[in-house]
Structure formats: C-alpha cells, structure tokens
C-alpha cells in the first residue's frame, strides 16, 4: 500500500507500451490459421508497433502447452502487461478479445 507512486507510474507506462502475446495453435488447422490472422489484424489496428506475437504449435511443443496449462486450442495468452489473461477460441469475436486484452472499455 505504501508504494512509491513514481515506480508505480513507471511500471504502468512500461507495460502499456509493449504487449507480449502468445498464441497456441495446432499445426496449420483452419481454426488455427483463422486465429492467427484475426490476432494479426487486431494488433495492426490497436497495437501498432508495440506488440510481439509468439506462435506455439502444441503438437511440436507440448511442454510449452503444459507450462501454460493450455488444454483448449486455439488459445491466446496475454503474457504482459500483467495480469495474465487467457482467451480461448479462434478470436473471431473481436469485441470480446479487445475487452479481455483491456483495449476497450465497453462490456463485450
């Protein structure tokens, strides 16, 4: 509670700047392709220049899926800024995704 307001501000600023997004997919299935293209277009529009997308194929790297407890695919994990968020599905519902990633204020 007795945090230095300066540090708090600085952290907030830093995290707002860059988004680390991890997308878990299965091979190149249609749903996975759709999820990736949905994510790319969303980032272009809302996070221009301040995002990184990591794509992980769970078939090739099951350990990574186990680490992040990814049972359902496609799945998007917002790694930073915290708090961590998990969005399941092919991300077609853009309003819900934006809301989950704290990029829109309204109720999805």
């Amino acid at each position, binding site marked *: 509670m007795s945090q230095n307001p300066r540090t708090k501000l600085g952290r907030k600023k830093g995290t707002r700047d860059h988004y680390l997004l991890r997308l878990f997919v299965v091979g190149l299935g249609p749903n996975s392709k759709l999820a990736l293209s949905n994510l790319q277009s969303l980032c272009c529009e809302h996070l221009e220049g301040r995002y990184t997308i990591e794509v992980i194929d769970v078939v090739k790297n099951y350990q990574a899926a186990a680490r992040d407890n990814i049972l359902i695919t496609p799945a998007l994990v917002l790694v930073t800024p915290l708090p961590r968020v998990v969005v399941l599905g092919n991300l077609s*519902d853009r309003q819900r*995704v934006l809301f989950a990633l704290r990029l829109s204020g309204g109720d999805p």
Partner: protein
Amino acid sequence: MHVRGRPIAKVPTQVSGLDEVLEGGLPRGRTTLVSGGPGSGKTVLGLQFLCAGALAGEPGVFVTLEERAEVVRQNALSMGWNLAALEKAGRVAIVEARLFGEEVTAGDFDIQGLLAIVGGQIKRIRARRVVMDALDVLLRVFNDPQRERNELYRLHEWLMNRGLTNLVTAKAQRGGETVSQYEFLDFMADCVLRLDHRVIGQVATRRLRVIKYRGSGFGTNEYPYVIGTHGIVLFPLTRAGLAHQPLGEKVSSGLTGLDIMLDGGYRRASCILVTGTSGTGKTTLTSTFVQAACRRGERVLSLSFEESREAIVHAMLSAGIDLRPALRARRLMIQTGLPEAMGSDDHLIRALEAIDSFKPDHVTLDAISACVRMGSEQAAFDYLMRLVCILKERGISCILTNQISGMVGTDEELSGIGFSSVVDAVIQLRFVEKDQEITREILVIKSRGSAHSNRRQTFVITDHGIEFPDDPLPPPSRKRPAGRQGGE
C-alpha cells in the same frame, strides 16, 4: 445370466472381483467409461487400474481434470500406491489439466491442446494405458451438447488411433440412473461401468453394474463393493460357490461326547451351524472348540457381534474355558464389532482383511441373528453368504451360531435367511423341562458327508466345561456303513 460373445483381448484390472464380472478385464485398446456420483470411487478405480498396469509393465498416463496432481498423489498414497515413485521410474505420468473458469471465450475452439500434452506424455513414457478423470469437467467449457459431442468424438478417435486401453470417468447426476447429458459417451465407449453409492436403511452401500460390454459377456447383476484400505473390492456372489474346497478330514470338537455323535468331529472346510435359544450354550460349545483347536496349535479367528473381547473371555472363564493362553500365543484373534457400526460390505471387508493377515484354520461367528442389524435381512444374507463362500474357497472351516427366538424350533427360522444350502452341519441346542427341572439337550440335525447320531443327548455346563452325564451313542450308521457314508 450371461451373454456370450466372440472373445476379445482384455486387460485385467486387478480389482478384486471385477475381472470375474468382466470375464477377464477391460477391453484392450478400447475405451471404458466409469460413471458414478460423488464419492462412488471412480477416481480410486481409475488409479487402481493405472497402478496395476504400471507395476505389470504397462505404463500409464493419469489425466486429472478436476483435482490437483498433488491431491491425486496423496489419495493414491492413502491406498498404498506410491505414484511419485512410479513417476520417477517413468511408469506413470500425471497431467494436471484443470480449467479455472477465468478464461474468456471468443470463437470456436477444441481440446487439441490437451491431446498434445497427453500425447507428449504418452510418447515419453511409452504409455499403454490412459485414465482421464472427470471428463465432464472438461466438457463443461463447451456449454453446448453438439460441441461436447464433437469433442468427445475427437477424443475417442484420438484414443482409438493410439491403440491404448483407456478408462474415462464422468460424474453421474445425483440420484439419476443415467448420465443423460453424456449418453453419447455411453454410446461411444465399448464398456460402461456404473458405480452407485446409495443409503439403504441408514447404511451406505455401493453397487457396481456393467451397463454394456461390446463383444464380450459380463455378469449382469449389481455387485456390492467397498473401498477398502487397498482400493476397490467387489463381491460377485454369483461366482462364489463354484470353487469350494471338498470337505476335509475330521477335527475334534473339543468334546469326546460330541465327537462320538459326529462320528469323529467337525470336518475341515465345512460350515457348521449351532442354533438354540438364548442361554442354551451356543457360545460355550463354540468356545470349547476354539480352545481345543488352539491347543492343537491351530489358528482361530472369532468374529463377535454380541460382546466385547473382555466380556467373552470373562464369561467363558466361568464355564471353565480359558481363552487367554490362546490369545497370548496369538493363535486366537477376536474381532468384535457392533453390527450397526457399518454396512455389511464394510463388515465383510474387515473380516476379509483379518482372514488375509491372520490366516486362520477356523473362523467362528457369533451370531447370525445379530447380522440382521447390519441393515436388513438382505444385507445379513449378503454378508453371510459371501463370507461362508470365501471361507469354503480357502478351505477354512466356520462355526456360526444362531439365536432363535421360540422355545421350540429347528433350523426352520434360518431358512428365512435362506442360506441353509451352504451349511454342512447343524447342531441344535435346547432347553427341556424334565422332572420339574430344566436341562439342556444337544442334537445333530444334519452332517453332510458323514454319519451322525440321531439322538438328543442331555448335557450340562459345569464350571469346568460341557459334560455329558450319559455317554452319547455312536451314530446308527456304524452298524449300517452304507447309510450316510461318503461325500456329497
């Protein structure tokens, strides 16, 4: 009773009694569904199957969709299965696959992430078995019957393609006969087991039923089971009775007079019933045998539902029978219990555990009449029938006492409980009024595979045991050897 089919490859579950019901085990390379309510033992059954496999050279993956892996390990350890050691040895892998309900859903998805994780573990330990515990929890995320179906189908195909033997558990709705929303799961699985946990007459009982088994016959009854200290134990009554040991040699009853009446004594591996009204001396007669057997160096397990161990020892002292040396020498084990304390299945498992560890030559049970208090007459029947059949299979003789209510009576009252077919010998004790005096009489009503006296004989209980004032007469068949001689 049984539906016969073409034999298919099976994997023994090593669950006591279940393999008999399944005529060998679960279908190899196929999926078995175990459904049941909370506390019915689904997870225990899954763990038991997995651990038995791991120890028999078939590694397995346990996918826990509800409990934490650590909780699963603890539960297994309480049953004596050390999962952590098996994991270290590369024979078991646990996949903790729990959804937390915080995930946001946006668009279509499927369970390939889970399959990738499970698939990775299968490859790593070269698994032959997969257990998925609480599949219903995973399916909840879809929130749509059609999509649940699609995913189940995907899972089923995936499992089938790997040629693994799978056991999947799902919760049944409380009170429901079927898992209605998972009917498709029932349809998809090759073998469906339903576990039922219900309360009858204030006593919890568990029942297992095989709903279907593609390509195989199976026992179609409901089978009682208990969750013992080492997993699930089933009691298929229908199979009992097929493997009885033949009646053995004769052993002294501890009384010369009664031995004469029985043409030598009790037969080993037989079931002897002592009936009589209260106070006729049933427990004294049984204790006489216990004392004699222990003195011969044999081992006796006494199951008592009437009195405490101290009370039994004390009461017998007044009749001149000292059981203390036998107890000290650990040849006698007295297991006491209130019939009401637990269900008949739990009483049975308790007795079986004592039989397994103590390895008695003889078992006495005092008294049948108290067993009804385990819940119902049916419960008492189940308990006694299974106990006697198991004892006979192992060649252990048993002496049961039964208290009858009327002053006059034969073993007719017993037929109510309906298991006279497994009783080999019946000895009746009764009071008679003669010359304004109450005396006790003993009569051998039946003695399978042996000659026996057909006379009532007066006996007295003195402070140094049972005595016969008149020497008992030998059985009439002594004169007519062709009579009742020979086994049955």
